[in-house]
């Protein structure tokens, strides 16, 4: 395909095919599915954050009429295994998290699964849980990661130190850097546990098919957990099949195994179909959270604003199990200095086990945490140097060709100058203050990678074929979590094969039938599977064009596929219906399908302790601007304007891209203002959506999106990913706006009214 060919479908705001089914209530989400004779599964969870299990007595539960299975750790063929999160390349370096299906000797966090039940009715399963007797001996727990790092701290997991990993990033000599600085800003930042709060709680259904294959239909971001599930059951990998449903929101929370292993065990033991859906309370209690961090930042600059040094110490709370904590920390390490040119950098990072709810992936994956710190620091430096916040940033932004502190060269366009200019422009006139309302505005920039870390050797496959009537089929093992993942593959294929999007049917997320496309995480699907699909579609196109050229007696170079026809671009009026070309290929035995494999760059990391070189394929850069009204007396913050500007490379589907960016901005606003999973000595104090507060439609401003399309991404047609980047710099933009409004900086998220009032009072007391 010619670079200059005008795009017909890419870049247009096309309604997604899945939206159609969803608007009429036709989409069958995980919990909407049932089978005759199915049982209901339930999970018994620990009421203690740290306790020894003295005994588990299930006999009364087993005797209850209608109960078909009661399982504990001893019933799990391989209870302790490691979770590899779908990747197939073994990397070591602490990257395989220990995963225990059911607690055996000890429980390590409140809500840890202890036993499973399957029964004829949900009510019976619930009753059975009440009849299981577990004797616990409560043990002292450790709930503060800083405390857990101390040498004499009690161990969370027997036989392994609380500190899971320690990484560092070193560039130059920070000592020297700080000696060159005229201004040094040093602060400690804290960010909380956050729930993904997808509207669809975890759910799935498992059965054994007529061949004896354990089949699990589940709401997940990673169908390739099928390998881990097979390992738990001690079965060959090809005996477990996972079918992914359209997901009612993921945001990283359905990246780890949720209900799958439980379902597999219950169906394996009973031989019956089993359904398991979490309640909201169970979801909040038991699934991963975004990592809380303590971040000590020291940033130095010259009087004129040029940065000289940055030193940071990051401590993240991994909770009771490892899961993705080392990975998340690694992301934070690479991002810790932000998109800035800093000659001297030192970052130390630790991720530490505690008896809190375990933490893992959450939209942004370690980037939003450090962004809150480095962008608050930048604002502080702006104040100290007397420069406008945008000026000091623009002076220090990295540019294409420059290197991150890790040494990774930014080989692609860095659009921060533009995104920041656009945001400042869009903020327009300042709203006038009234009464006790103080108005303030702030900006923050961020960088977030898209695509997985290069040492994971990430790959994706896609299968494109054309049928005898000219309709097109895509098969790709992607999971669609609401971001339009499936429909963008349709758009790409429609563009390449010159057919309307209605002619395309896509089959997704089935480990038995669709080629492996990897996880829908790390903002990687458009990049990875978009490229794989593009490659496959181009191959099919090549075959068709070649055939048509022969049929028409025209040079293939001058042919194009448009509106179900092969046409002569030169305007001779010669053309053939696509169908006819397809038929000709078929009768000649020319393959009308292609499976493409797309490989991200593969690099290995020499050593994990000290992170150097390229870690990610590329980054998405952007800036957020916020205007807030702060009520000086009550401390309540209302966000009046929220502006997101991103270089998206190329907007494959404008509606989807805007949707991601708007949703991401409000996700970030929740992080800034109201969202926090409060754990008191390991006990969840925010068990439901009455306490865990998401923004409502009355809390949000109209997010304004400004897209930059540099065309310089590594995705198809030069696209970059936006799913996660859209969250990254919202919190610091809002915190900076609050500072601008009331002259007080809050170092802990969320910015609750109470913190604001307290800080204002302290400021007043100090005169």
């Amino acid at each position: 395909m010619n670079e200059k060919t005008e795009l017909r479908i890419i870049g247009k705001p096309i309604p997604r095919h899945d939206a159609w089914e969803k608007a009429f209530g036709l989409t069958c989400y995980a919990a909407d599915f049932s089978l005759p004779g199915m049982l209901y599964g339930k999970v018994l969870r620990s009421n203690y954050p740290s306790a020894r299990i003295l005994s588990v007595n299930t006999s009364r539960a087993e005797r209850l009429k209608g109960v078909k299975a009661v399982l504990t750790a001893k019933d799990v063929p391989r209870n302790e295994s490691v979770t590899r999160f779908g990747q197939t390349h073994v990397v070591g370096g602490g990257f395989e998290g220990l995963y225990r299906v059911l607690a055996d000797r000890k429980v390590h966090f409140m809500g840890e699964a202890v036993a499973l039940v399957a029964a004829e009715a949900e009510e019976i399963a619930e009753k059975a849980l009440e009849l299981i007797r577990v004797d616990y001996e409560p043990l002292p727990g450790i709930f503060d990661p800083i405390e857990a790092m101390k040498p004499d701290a009690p161990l969370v997991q027997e036989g392994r130190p609380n500190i899971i990993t320690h990484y560092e990033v070193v560039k130059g000599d920070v000592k020297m850097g700080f000696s060159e600085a005229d201004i040094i800003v040093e602060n400690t930042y804290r960010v909380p546990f956050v729930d993904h709060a997808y509207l669809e709680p975890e759910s799935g259904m498992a059965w054994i098919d007529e061949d004896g294959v354990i089949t699990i239909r589940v709401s997940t971001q990673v169908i390739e957990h099928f390998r881990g599930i097979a390992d738990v059951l001690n079965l060959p990998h090809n005996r477990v099949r996972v079918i992914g449903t359209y997901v009612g929101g993921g945001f990283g929370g359905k990246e780890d195994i949720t209900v799958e292993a439980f379902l597999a065990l219950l169906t394996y033991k009973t031989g019956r179909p089993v359904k398991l859906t979490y309640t909201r309370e169970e979801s909040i209690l038991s699934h991963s959270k975004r990592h809380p961090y303590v971040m000590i930042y020291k940033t130095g600059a010259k009087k004129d604003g040029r940065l000289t040094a940055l030193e940071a110490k990051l401590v993240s709370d991994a909770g009771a199990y490892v899961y993705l904590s080392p990975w998340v920390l690694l992301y934070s390490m690479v991002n810790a200095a932000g998109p800035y040119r800093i000659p001297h950098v030192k970052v130390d990072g630790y991720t530490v086990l505690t008896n809190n709810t375990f933490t893992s992936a959450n939209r942004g994956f370690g980037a939003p945490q450090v962004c809150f710190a480095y962008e608050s620091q930048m604002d502080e430096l702006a104040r100290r140097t007397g420069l406008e916040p945008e000026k000091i940033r623009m002076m220090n932004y990295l540019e294409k060709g420059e290197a991150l502190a890790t040494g990774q060269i930014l080989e692609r366009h860095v659009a921060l100058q533009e995104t920041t200019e656009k945001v400042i422009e869009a903020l327009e006139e300042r709203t006038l203050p009234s009464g006790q309302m103080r108005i303030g505005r702030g900006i923050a920039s961020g960088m977030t990678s898209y695509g997985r870390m290069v040492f994971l050797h990430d790959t994706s496959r896609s299968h494109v074929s054309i049928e005898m009537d000219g309709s097109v089929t895509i098969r790709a093992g992607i999971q669609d979590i609401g971001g339009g993942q499936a429909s963008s593959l349709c758009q790409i294929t429609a563009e390449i094969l010159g057919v309307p999007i209605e002619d395309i049917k896509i089959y997704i997320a089935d480990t038995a039938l669709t080629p492996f496309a990897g996880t829908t995480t790390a903002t990687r699907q458009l990049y990875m599977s978009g490229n794989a699909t593009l490659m496959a579609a181009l191959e099919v196109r090549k075959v068709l064009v070649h055939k048509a050229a022969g049929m028409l007696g025209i040079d293939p170079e001058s042919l194009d596929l448009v509106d179900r026809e092969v046409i002569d671009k030169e305007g001779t009026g010669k053309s053939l219906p696509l169908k006819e070309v397809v038929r000709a290929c078929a009768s000649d035995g020319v393959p009308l399908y292609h499976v493409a494999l797309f490989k991200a760059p593969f690099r290995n990391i020499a050593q994990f302790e000290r992170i150097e070189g390229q870690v990610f394929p590329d980054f998405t850069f952007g800036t957020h601007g916020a205007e807030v009204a702060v009520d000086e007396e009550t401390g309540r913050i209302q966000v009046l304007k929220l502006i997101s500007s991103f270089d998206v490379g190329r907007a494959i589907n404008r509606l989807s891209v805007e949707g991601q960016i708007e949703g991401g901005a409000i996700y970030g606003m929740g992080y800034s203002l109201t969202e926090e999973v409060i754990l008191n000595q390991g006990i969840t104090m925010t068990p439901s959506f009455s306490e865990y507060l998401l923004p409502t439609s009355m809390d949000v401003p109209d997010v304004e999106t400004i897209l930059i399309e540099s065309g310089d991404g590594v995705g198809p047609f030069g696209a970059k990913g936006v799913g996660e980047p859209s969250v990254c710099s919202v919190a610091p933009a809002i915190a900076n706006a609050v500072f601008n409004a009331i002259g007080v900086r809050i170092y802990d998220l969320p910015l609750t009214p109470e913190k604001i009032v307290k800080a204002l009072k302290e400021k007043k007391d100090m005169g």
Partner: protein
Amino acid sequence: MEYIRPQNLKEILHLMKQWKKKATLIAGGTNVIPDLRARAIRPEVLIDISQLKGLSYIKEDKKKIHIGALTTVSELASSKIIQKWAPLLSEAANQLGNPLVRNRATIAGNLADGSPAADTAVPLLALEAIIVIQGGKEKQVPIHQFFVGPNQTVLKRDEMIKEVIVPKCNPNAKTAYFKLGLRNSMAVSVVSIAVLMEMEKTFCKKARIGCGAVAPKPIRAYRIEEMLENHELTERLLRACCETIGKEISPISDIRASKEYRTEMASVLLKRVMKRVTQ
């Protein structure tokens, strides 16, 4: 568990007498159903009064408004009668929970539940509403005597709320309801204050103040009322009131806010409602 849907008041009363502690009355169900789900209550019988249309009305006579027990919070919010004669009640109703909940939640359920933060209770305190309780015989309880403690009221096992009587506000009265929550919808009050004042120029002839979420039950701020009533309203007096309110309340700390914050906010909200009514 059994389920009974009585057809009239007499039947309800009979059933309550018969089942006593084993029965739970259910109206809109917005408290009862979450409690059933959480197994916080385990009644043997549910007496469903939600379909008794006869208990859902808003009527007025010369001096009073009569609100049937089953009137929904949405109806309170949109009623012309209430907007005219008890505007702070419709203001409060408009801020209870969320629009979907308001279509089910009833006034009697909100009062009988006895939450310290109940959004209809606070304005009704300022309005000096009367709760009409039907048991063996009918009695009228002034709302300030109705609440006893957290989720506790004077209602006995065989009694129910039949009606709420609200004296019409003097057309010259100034009223306001302010609620402070952690978000703009679906927010339980951190503090709420309702005020009714009758003024002659700057002279306060009558002051009634209700407060929510600052004590074990919704309360009246009597001391502040006394400070205001029959006094010339001065900046100084208002400031003194805002300083005093802290002594009249006994808030707790919970995940939404600390005791200290609530105390301070009671004073801030009082200042704001006063400002609004005196403008």
